[in-house]
């Protein structure tokens, strides 16, 4: 009733194989895009952008990237924080070395550099599997953070050891530095989010995505039917790190502005993004968004309820948050291993039949 496919007749193959073959879905998607691009920028202020929208958008990119590696290719990685740091520091070095180059190009270049680093750390995945690999990616996490902490060249020999984003403009509008407008940073990040989601969606349903999924489901079997595991795994690492690098660059340049590597890109960040895709749904682009939204909203909601309404001390609320997040992870793994994305699918199925379920 509410959600229906009646009257949708595909008359050509491209029509049948589009991302949203059902008209209802397609219009909803256009509506979401319209709201995000045209309506929201007029209504947001600094508080909304900095506490909700920017983290959501940037984590969504990171979650899409990690989901490609973990959800689609089945290679568990705990090095997300390290790779985000690569993106951030690459972006910083590029921004300070080439002040006149457009930020879009610099962010994409940071992504490429991260992809390269990701491939290097992905090489052992050919020999090491499962959680052995998860632990091996910890090497990337700790080594990269150490590297950016200890080698002064990366932070341009600044006395504090921090990196801070210089002011840069995009079409004459400031998007980094202290004097940015809320809507400008929002739109700049949104652009990358839409592009990432588009690319990721089409990669994962193409031949490359099918190879990743074959590797995920059983790598030996995949090898026997002719999937090259070297190429499949390394492309997954490269594409995933590319997205994570972009998110790291945006996280530093647009969102935070100044970064101390151990604090911002520590192991906690790796777990946070991993939790996003577990809660959102492994192997689903929508799930990456849902998970990112959930884990960005949760602390804000908890803070409003716990600190502002009930007047509890912040540290108790912070501990409660750990308990809730940990508990949710377990609940999701037990009750709904495919996360929020699966709940959404079930809801759609219910709505399709409503109000006559049989």
């Amino acid at each position: 009733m509410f959600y229906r496919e009646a009257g949708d007749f595909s008359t050509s193959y491209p029509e049948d194989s589009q991302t949203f073959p059902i008209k209802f879905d397609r219009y909803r998607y256009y509506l979401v895009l319209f709201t995000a691009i045209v309506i929201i920028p007029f209504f947001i202020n600094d508080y909304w952008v900095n506490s909700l929208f920017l983290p959501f958008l940037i984590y969504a990119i990171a979650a899409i990237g990690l989901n490609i590696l973990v959800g689609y290719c089945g290679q568990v990685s705990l090095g997300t924080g390290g790779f985000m740091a690569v993106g951030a520091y690459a972006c910083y070095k590029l921004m300070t070395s080439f002040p006149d180059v457009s930020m879009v190009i610099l962010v994409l270049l940071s992504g490429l550099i991260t992809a390269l680093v990701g491939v290097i750390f992905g090489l052992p995945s050919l020999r090491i599997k499962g959680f052995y690999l998860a632990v091996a990616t910890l090497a990337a996490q700790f080594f990269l953070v150490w590297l950016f902490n200890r080698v002064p060249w990366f932070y341009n020999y600044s006395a504090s050891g921090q990196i801070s984003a210089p002011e840069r403009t995009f079409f004459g509008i400031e998007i980094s530095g202290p004097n940015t407008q809320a809507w400008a940073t929002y739109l700049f990040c949104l652009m990358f989010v839409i592009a990432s989601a588009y690319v990721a969606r089409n990669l994962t349903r193409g031949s490359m995505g099918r190879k990743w999924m074959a590797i995920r489901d059983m790598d030996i079997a995949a090898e026997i039917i002719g999937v090259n595991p070297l190429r499949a795994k390394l492309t997954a690492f490269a594409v995933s790190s590319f997205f994570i690098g972009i998110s790291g660059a945006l996280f530093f340049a647009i969102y935070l502005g100044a970064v101390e590597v151990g604090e911002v890109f520590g192991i906690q960040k790796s777990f946070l993004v991993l939790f996003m895709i577990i809660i959102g749904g492994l192997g689903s682009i929508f799930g990456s968004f849902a998970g990112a939204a959930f884990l960005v909203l949760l602390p804000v909601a908890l803070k409003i309820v716990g600190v502002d309404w009930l007047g509890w001390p912040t540290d108790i609320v912070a501990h409660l948050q750990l308990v809730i997040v940990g508990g949710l992870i377990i609940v999701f793994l037990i009750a709904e291993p495919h996360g929020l994305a699966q709940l959404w699918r079930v809801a759609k199925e219910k709505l399709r039949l409503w109000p006559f379920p049989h």
Partner: protein
Amino acid sequence: MPEQLAFALEVTANGLMAGVLYALVALGFVLIYKASGIFNYAQGVMALFAALTLAGIIDGQVPFSHLINAVFGTDVHYFGWNAPAFLAILLTMVVMIGLAYAVQRLVFRHLVGQEPIILFMATIGLAYFLEGVGDLMWGSDIKSIDVGLPQGINTWIDDTTFNSLGYGFFIDNLDIVASIIAALLVIILVMFAQYTKQGRAMRAVADDHQAALSVGVSLNFIWILVWSLAGFVALVAGIMWGTKSGVQFSLSLIALKALPVLMLGGFTSIPGAIVGGLIIGVGEKLFEFLIGAPFLGGATENWFAYMLALIFLVFRPQGLFGEKIIERV
């Protein structure tokens, strides 16, 4: 350079001691992994939780006092007594057994037959959960544990080495005690697994769940037993680390250090955990001393263990003593 050599020897000795502590945490991992195939990331947080509980009981803290005070507006913090160390350890052990029961009953019973990686992620969730509960229960300030273990420089070793080498080694008494306790613990665990009925049942479950089930071994009981044992090992590790450097969040990061230890030694081998721990302990201290501090700017201990394990695994994916990994389609 006899002086440099003496330094290196001292570093090695200290590395061995640190390695013993890594091995202690790694032991807990191996126990659970062998019996249930669960790679228990929460082992480190269990050590933290055990140490927090122990410290809380010794000080007579009211559990969840912060939360209670915040919710009901009361002002309770302490019961007003100090529990003797031995009783506190016993009580903590009861808590850990309760925890083992709850974890098995509420979480892993529902996840039987899932892929290992799902179980692994569930333990990450468990780690967060426990960390939050531990902080809520006992507060997040740094605590110290004193259960009467000797601490400070061992003067005998200091004197002996000074007389023979002309340079006194600094070795903490606590580290020596920790090594002895770790050795005892391993012997007890091996004896338990080899010579008791429950130990045999445990090994049967580790070998083949279904076969063990068919000859009448209660899987639930064995898993609770194994989680309790892991809780016991966590308690011992928590006491050692807690006495050494205070009970604080960084304790749970020690668990991360135990991961490369495991990979090096092999997930399924108790001796492997010990040898792996010693290699990592000595390796990272020596690397820092010889290469890290002079040439790389120091603090290489943060990543050396992982890199070593990573490189090692590329050549031998099952670790030093692990069972050969056989894959079938």
